[in-house]
């Protein structure tokens, strides 16, 4: 639903009287479409940056502590003032934001108070780790969720489906950190099979096998606690789909259940699945960040948590913006993919405007 709604305002200005010509025009002027999307993205990120900036600056903590450590306590008032001046913390909030923004536009996101380096270089080092972790979990959840959904629908309301549903609800109720701890306890403390922390053993950062080994537990924890969220939504969609009339027609034609399910139903709910996965992304990222912290996996989550504790403002901003960027882009991508997959989506907008007058959902 979220996606469908987000899409609306692309055609906010189109009147219902305008017909297919609008669509043809839209198709022709791909750059216009693209620019609109890009504008939306930039605007969203701008709002996000304002939000995060002011939220983090309202914090009462001492950012100088992150920079100077305990030395802060030994500094006199003049030294403190000089330090504030040097880090640009003495000006009023709006000026500070303006400075940040103009810097950011030229690619300078400031320095991390904690690491005393350019924020981007610190983030760059760990973002790859998070990317791998998220991507692997995302793919696994997508594939497993789809399989699980199909399996459940084929046996709807039989014992297997009911048991899976129960187990799914149970697994979904386990908070990420608990799942991570349980797995850590079983596989690394008790059985000693897998490493319990980090992204690679010391000095092995280039060793792919070693990295893969370190990925197993975090990925398992994420998949365990999030799989049902997706599988459940997909299952419900699919279960609604097989109740539609064309399924009966397919049956009459003599197609097997399997053929109908895979060739027709699954194809028809693809747009819905794309939307589900897009809505799911922020949940997944949140879960990833928590799991990272439990496994002390060097990624954006661990970094974000540290920087919130030490009031490392610039770092917080960049992490929030990166996360927001990915989520918003993913949502837009999902819309675009959906429009390609199902051209009705675009007409749907016009129809709803016509019928509801208000473009109500």
């Amino acid at each position, binding site marked *: 639903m979220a996606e469908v709604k987000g899409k609306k305002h692309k055609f906010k200005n189109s009147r219902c009287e305008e017909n297919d010509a609008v669509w043809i025009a839209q198709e022709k002027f791909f750059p216009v479409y693209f620019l609109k999307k890009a504008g939306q993205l930039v605007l969203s990120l701008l709002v996000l940056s304002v939000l995060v900036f002011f939220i983090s600056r309202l914090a009462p903590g001492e950012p100088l502590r992150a920079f100077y450590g305990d030395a802060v306590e030994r500094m006199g008032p003049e030294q403190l003032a000089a330090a504030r001046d040097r880090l640009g913390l003495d000006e009023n909030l709006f000026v500070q934001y303006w400075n940040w923004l103009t810097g950011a536009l030229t690619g300078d996101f400031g320095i991390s108070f904690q690491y005393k380096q350019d924020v981007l270089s610190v983030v760059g080092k760990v973002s790859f780790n998070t990317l791998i972790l998220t991507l692997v979990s995302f793919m696994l959840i997508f594939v497993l969720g789809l399989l699980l959904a199909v399996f459940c629908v084929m046996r709807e309301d039989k014992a297997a489906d009911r048991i899976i549903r129960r187990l799914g609800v149970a697994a979904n109720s386990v908070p990420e950190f608990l799942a991570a701890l349980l797995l850590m306890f079983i596989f690394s403390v008790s059985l000693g099979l897998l490493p319990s922390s980090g992204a690679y053993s010391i000095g092995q950062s280039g060793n792919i096998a070693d990295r893969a080994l370190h990925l197993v537990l975090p990925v398992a924890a994420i998949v365990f606690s999030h799989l049902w969220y997706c599988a459940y939504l997909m299952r419900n969609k699919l279960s609604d789909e097989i109740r539609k009339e064309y399924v009966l027609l397919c049956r009459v034609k003599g197609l097997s259940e399997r053929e109908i399910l895979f060739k027709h139903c699954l194809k028809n709910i693809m747009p819905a699945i794309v939307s589900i996965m897009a809505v799911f992304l922020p949940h997944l990222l*949140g879960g990833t960040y928590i799991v990272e912290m439990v496994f002390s996996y060097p990624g954006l989550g661990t970094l974000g948590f540290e920087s919130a504790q030490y009031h490392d403002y610039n770092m917080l901003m960049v992490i929030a913006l990166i996360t927001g960027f990915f989520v918003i882009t993913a949502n837009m991508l999902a819309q675009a993919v959906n429009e390609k997959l199902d051209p009705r989506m675009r007409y749907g907008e016009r129809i709803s405007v016509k019928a509801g007058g208000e473009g109500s*959902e």
Partner: protein
Amino acid sequence: MNSQRCRIKRAKENERRIPYAAVLFLAVLTAGCLLAELIMPYDPTYMNLAAVSEAPSSSHLLGTDTLGRDIFSIIWYGGRISLFVALVATLISTIIAIVYGSIAGFSPRHLDEMLMRFSEILMSIPSILLVIFLQAILGEASVLSIAVVIGITGWMPVAKMVRSEVKQIRSSDYILAAQTMGGGFFYVLRRHLTPNFLSAIMFMVVTSIGSAIATEATLSFLGIGLPTNIISWGSLMSLSQGAILSGAWWLLLIPGTVLVTTIICITEIGEYLRTSGRRERLL
């Protein structure tokens, strides 16, 4: 065909059945937490240094934690805080969601569009990051501050639902009548709107109690929630990462089981509300 219809009917009834087991569990849990003083064999705050990290035994039913506190007592006593935090957080988020959603539902199209966009932007950052930021602002966590933080980061999905419900009923005649007779926004909201969409959002509200419990536990576990001297399930679990490395499994499994069972029961009830609040299928 007939047998299939029977099966569908049975499945429907199955879905609609009141989850007695879940209700019973929650009732026992709530009663136990409220009457904790009568049940607890030990003072939950007392740190018995002679009995640190003891496995479950007859003297300590569920063992002791790394500080020598009796886990059985903590479960009841700490449950009080955990449930309180979850309820307050849900109350806050629901109020924000109802007000925000109704304002958006009533506003002209562009304002509505803007408000919804804003809530979507908020939703685009994982709530755990928002919670961490806000908790950092409020400084040292207290029971109330953590409830507020969880509450003000979790209202967006419900607000969305409220908005679409309000949009559907706002042009009804009785609302127009109330407005013409001089009923203000909040009057209409209280008397006419809320009773109408309450059943539609109820399941989300109930489910969010469960996720608030989970969030509190997560925050306390990470060390930015309640400190260990304020006893809750989460603060008890914050000791568990160190404990499992030394093999004290009960410190992880026992509070974990209670936590997960509670959340499952809440989800079951939410699911029941969702299916029973839904309109009968027309086909």
